[in-house]
Structures are given as structure tokens and as C-alpha cells.
């Protein structure tokens, strides 16, 4: 069986859609093979992962004052 022809654009679309999910179909295997040999797509894959990680790492902490204001509004301050 011939391997499906894969272009960088296909890889980008597919990676975006399936990042973190199982890649088992013939098309997915062809994508994996393409990814292994294409620096462009490796960079794209890495930067998509980094994008997610940047936003995961960006957290804020609720201040004690904001917590107190919340409890007061809810009538739960003792």
C-alpha cells in the first residue's frame, strides 16, 4: 500500500486537532513519519505545545483581601 502524501499544512492541522490524543490510523502514522523528518513541523509541534504550557503556567493567586471581600458578600465571615 502506498503511503499517503503529507504536506506540512496537513501536519499542522492534524497536530492542532489531535495533540495529546492517540494517533493510530494510517494517516497518523504517515504524519508521525513526516514529523520525524521535517524540522518545520517539529518546530510547529513544539511551539503549539509551548503555547499551551505558557497559558497553563500563567496563574494568579487570590489575595487575602479579595477572599475577605468574598466571604463578606456571601455572609460567611465569622
Amino acid at each position, binding site marked *: 500500500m502506498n503511503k499517503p502524501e503529507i504536506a506540512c499544512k496537513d501536519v499542522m492541522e492534524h497536530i492542532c486537532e489531535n495533540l495529546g490524543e492517540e494517533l493510530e490510523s494510517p494517516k497518523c502514522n504517515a504524519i508521525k513519519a513526516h514529523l520525524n523528518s521535517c524540522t518545520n513541523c517539529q518546530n510547529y509541534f513544539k*511551539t503549539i505545545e509551548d503555547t499551551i504550557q505558557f*497559558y*497553563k503556567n500563567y496563574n*494568579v493567586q487570590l489575595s487575602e483581601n479579595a477572599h475577605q471581600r*468574598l466571604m463578606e*458578600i456571601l455572609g460567611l465571615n465569622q
Partner: protein
Amino acid sequence: MEESELIKQAQSGNKKALEQLVKNYENTVYNFSFKICRDKERAENTMQETFLSLLKNINQFKGDSKLSTWLYTVVSNHCLMMFRNAPRHAHSSLDDEDLFNDESKLTDWTISPVMLTENKELKEILDKSIANLAPDYRIIFLLRDVEGLSTEETAGITNLSIAAVKSRLHRARAFLRNELNKSLKYE
């Protein structure tokens, strides 16, 4: 005490149980609100509205879904309503042609996610980039990728089909990646 027991006690008027539920979720709700609004004052306001809604409706909570899912739904709806009532912000295109056709920009980045802590300039880049993403796409990206909810849970919260969630997620990821690429790529 188990969450289901806390909810039962809160429903029967136990203020300590209610207080504990609020304490268990206040940071999650505040953080998620901030991630959508990118503004601490609006995030605090959304958090207050969300817990006021919890107090008002706790007796109707049947436990069919997780309390966290219910809270994410209230925050998402509240934020979407805020965006609809706010002056229009022009969001950038999410067309396939714009999102996936720029192979010239496929370069590595100068900075990695571990460098985020206390990096004010990078935080400004992240805030600005996500502000350019339409809110209904932003919420999908945040629920699925940042909060780690499943596609099914995200579809339930946003009242969208599984296919619509997947499609929006895939565009949101590509859009944000392209926005960050403008600032973070090696020249």
C-alpha cells in the same frame, strides 16, 4: 469530608459546609475568571457573582455533574455576557487560510514556558495575544487545554457539539501559537 456530603450539609443550611465549599473552589474560580478576562478586578467580580449564584441555587444542585463543572459553566456564561455587553473589540481572523498557511514562520522560540515566573514582559505578551482571540474560542482553549477538561465536559459547559469544540480548539491553538510566534520567534 467528601464533597457530596459537604453539598448535602450546605443544602440543609450548614454555613460551615458552605464556607468550606467556597474555600475549596475560590482559587479555581478566580483563576479561571482571570484567564478569560485578563483583568483582576473583572475576575474578582465574576468570582463573587459565581458564588452568589451558588448560594442562591445550591438546593437545585442534584449532583448529576461535578460541582466544578457547574462552576465553570457559570463563569463561562458570566464572562461571555460581559464580553457581549462591552464595547466591541475587533478580534483577528480564524480562517484556515490565515491560520495554517504561513510555513515561512516555522521557527523555534527564544523563550520557554519554564521562564514565565515573574517575567512581566512575557505575561503582557500572553495577555495581549489571548485578548485578540474571540471569547467563545478563548473559553474552549482554556477549558480543554489549560483546565484539562475533556472534550465532552467542554461541550456540555459551552452547549456546543463535540465537533464544534474540536474545531474551535484546533483553531484557537493555531491562532494563539501564531500570535505568540510574532513576539517569541528567533529573528
